[in-house]
């Protein structure tokens, strides 16, 4: 059987499917073992979406309506890299988040906090030739959920990234440094390893901060990468 090309060990930081403290995993996690398969053409290829998918302004969530949204303006910027440090250029990033009051525009969000008519919380951007991206937004508020009594999600932004193959697909959440809710959040803590958990916390950066305008955060995404060493098998391109 042919060898793995994207090392599976690189996924060791991922949470398990079953994390009982996060109640929704109990009936949604597979109970039978996953079947480990080699990486075939179907896994090594993947959808390629780049600049044709975004429009001017999709990465500035503060300018999608007539007025200015309420809340603390932020810039979130960084790079998309693979695990060997190579930039991932021209790849689509999608983002969604709550407004400053902790409310999503989603129809099923029932949190009794106000919607902001000037904020949707939807963004898209494509990385440049060095894998860089940049969003301007509003710092999302914490919000309650029904997982357990007095459950609150730390402030977070949801991200979706493609990368170059089916295997590099990533959906994750970015958190903000120093959030007092970290110890109480079963989703954040579903990642057992502290170092891996901390990869999801953005870094406040005074250099990224824009004077008189917006607080700056740096956040890099690291996607799975192919083995750095060339493979002997000529069929693996």
């Amino acid at each position: 059987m042919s060898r793995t090309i994207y090392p599976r060990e690189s996924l060791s930081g991922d949470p398990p499917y079953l994390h009982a403290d996060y109640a929704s995993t109990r009936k949604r996690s597979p109970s039978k073992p996953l079947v480990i398969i080699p990486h075939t053409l179907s896994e090594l290829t993947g959808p390629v979406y780049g600049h044709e998918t975004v429009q001017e302004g999709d990465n500035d969530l503060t300018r999608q309506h007539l007025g200015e949204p309420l809340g603390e303006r932020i810039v979130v910027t960084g790079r998309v890299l693979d695990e060997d440090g190579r930039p991932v250029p021209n790849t689509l990033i999608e983002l969604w988040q709550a407004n400053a009051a902790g409310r999503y525009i989603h129809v099923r969000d029932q949190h009794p906090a106000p919607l902001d008519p000037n904020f949707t919380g939807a963004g898209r951007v494509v990385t440049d030739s060095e894998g860089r991206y940049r969003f301007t937004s509003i710092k999302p508020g914490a919000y309650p959920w029904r997982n357990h009594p007095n459950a609150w999600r730390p402030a977070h932004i949801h991200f979706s990234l493609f990368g170059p193959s089916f295997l590099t697909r990533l959906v994750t959440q970015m958190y903000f440094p120093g959030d007092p809710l970290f110890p109480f959040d079963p989703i954040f803590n579903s990642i057992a390893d502290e170092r891996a958990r901390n990869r999801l916390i953005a870094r406040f950066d005074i250099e990224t901060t824009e004077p008189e305008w917006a607080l700056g955060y740096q956040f890099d995404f690291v996607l799975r990468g192919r083995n750095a060493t060339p493979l002997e098998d000529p069929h693996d391109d």
Partner: protein
Amino acid sequence: MTEARRYGVQPGNPDGVTPSQTVGPFFAYVLTPHEYGTREIFSKDIVTPDAVGHPIRIEGYVIDGDGEPIIDAMLEIWQADGDGRYAGAAPQHGANTAFKGFGRSDVDSNGFFAFRTVKPGQVPGPDGTTQAPHINVGVFARGLLKRLFTRIYFQGEPANATDPILALVPKERRHTLIAARRSRGDDTVYTFNIRLQGEDETVFFEA
């Protein structure tokens, strides 16, 4: 200010692959926004006029460990065209740029989804083998801390018997990967239910 200052104090790059987190319950207005009246860039109908292959529908339910429908899931499909060509593949694999091969769908309030696509052809497998027609599927949902990966195979395909990936699946579970075919009017419809847990749990892969 220099790069050294910017990246020197704390490492600018994390020390490993960014871990996955759940897509949560509130993704639809960005990822599958057809009900929000905003621009949708991915679709559940991926049949383009120039797509090579027989048009089919793939329908099913996403079901949890209690047998209840999951109403806040998102599915993504990735497949070759009818000639077994993946968009963006290296030329020696017969790249096809006309058919994108990627679809995304939410589920409705009954946990039901439906894709329109073309039946994929056969693509190379490991070590000189050939794979039976199949579609890679990613499942995202509230309560899924990371994507679930499964494959749709097709009822009535002789190549299923020699597929190198199906061969890795315990015999008694293979049926969970094979979509049942029927006709509805002029349509060829394949039914593929996704059971996340329990009796007849769908086979999920790690790759």
